[in-house]
């Protein structure tokens, strides 16, 4: 890629940062060029972020309907899913799935709650509550 073709699209996903792209000058010599973003990349990132946010919002609605535990909302809100949450807590996926049920979640031991709280970077109180609709 020629350095004049390095995209400078001011992507919102870069939040004002710049990334290095290797590109060639008029003589074909490579140099490091700073890019403020590329629209194509931004689109793909935003699509992934929106997918995660949508999952969190869906979970939040289920929590308010009493169909799911606050844990599900916090899991998606911290950009995790069931396999990942199982991995970071060292629990089995079936255990995590079970803990997403409101009836099971309210009876969780302090140590289990602490484990989830640590993995999600929250306090236990924060873990047990969700934002109001």
């Amino acid at each position, binding site marked *: 890629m020629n350095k004049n073709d390095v995209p400078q699209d001011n992507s919102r996903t870069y*939040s004002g*940062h710049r*990334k290095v792209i290797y590109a060639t000058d008029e003589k074909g010599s490579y140099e*490091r060029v700073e890019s403020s973003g590329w629209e194509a990349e931004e*689109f793909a990132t935003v699509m992934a*972020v929106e997918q*995660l946010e949508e999952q969190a919002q869906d979970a939040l609605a289920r929590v308010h309907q009493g169909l799911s535990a606050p844990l599900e909302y916090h899991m998606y809100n911290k950009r995790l*899913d069931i396999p990942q949450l199982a*991995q970071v807590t060292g629990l089995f996926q079936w255990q995590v799935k079970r803990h997403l049920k409101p009836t099971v979640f309210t009876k969780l031991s302090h140590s289990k709650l602490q484990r989830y709280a640590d993995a999600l970077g929250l306090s236990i109180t924060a873990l047990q509550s969700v934002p109001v609709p």
Partner: protein
Amino acid sequence: MTSSSPTFRHYHSAHCETGVVSSILQHHGHDISEAMAFGLASGLSFAYIPIVKLNGLPLIAYRMPPKSIIKGVQKRLGFNMAFQKFSDAAKGMDTLDKHVEQGKLVGLQTSVYWLPYFPEDMRFHFNAHNLLVYGKDNEEYLVSDPVFEDVVRCDKPSLQKARFAKGALAPKGLMYYPTHIPKSLPVEREIPGAIRKNAKIMYAPLPMIGLKGIRYLSGKIRKLDKQLKTERKVKLYLGHIVRMQEEIGTGGAGFRFIYASFLQEAADRLNSAQLKESSEMMTEAGDQWRQFALNAVKMCKKRANLDLDSLADDLRLCADKEQAVWRELRKFKG
């Protein structure tokens, strides 16, 4: 109290691991660019790994696995690094402090998600990020993160969380620093071997690795609408490929350009017309990767009709262009 490594100079890089290795070597007086580090480590690759899932989608890697670049360069150039992992987070932080107080430059493996200076949209649970700590100011660490324009700061609790994040590729507090770097490094001597090794990786006799892997993914794209029932899922999958390619750890095209830059530097150092030509061909391969990403996004945005066959052809062309380079480099003697 401030303690920091004197005369440290931040080096803005395209990729974290190559940036860290290059920074360490430059700090110790060696002129090893990021591209040279990448090339010497035979870092270019392609791997489609369906058993490792990121938010339910397969891992697609465009370079060798984490830590292989540091270890690869170390082996080629014959310097020594100490690697240390910790089971106790507090001990891991104390040991880091001790080294930083001595004015050492220390490399760390971390999660991206817990680093507060990362833009919100780039914070994903990716555990194989690399950064350098070059000092400490009260309770804040002075950090040189190669993918940022300038040095940054990080508070202790966040850095601890990032170093001891759990899950796939968990860093386990990994820290590393050079213990011995010789006065002169055998760069020219090692270039041909590193290139041949990389050719071997791209020609790996495994269906989902190297050139075969690129063609495998191309075949997968061709049949995507049969495997995934909804158009939304197809688009998320395509978006995921682009994201793995362009954002997470620089990605497909980016790495091709870094490698082309390495080939150009190698051509100058060895005075080789062949490598110069290879560099130009690799640039074309990188351009083709960008074209593929652009076309995929256009289709996701509905600016163009969803045409999986033409996308699959774009990707096949990437493989063909790369193969033309590696065919020649396989036998490269210098």
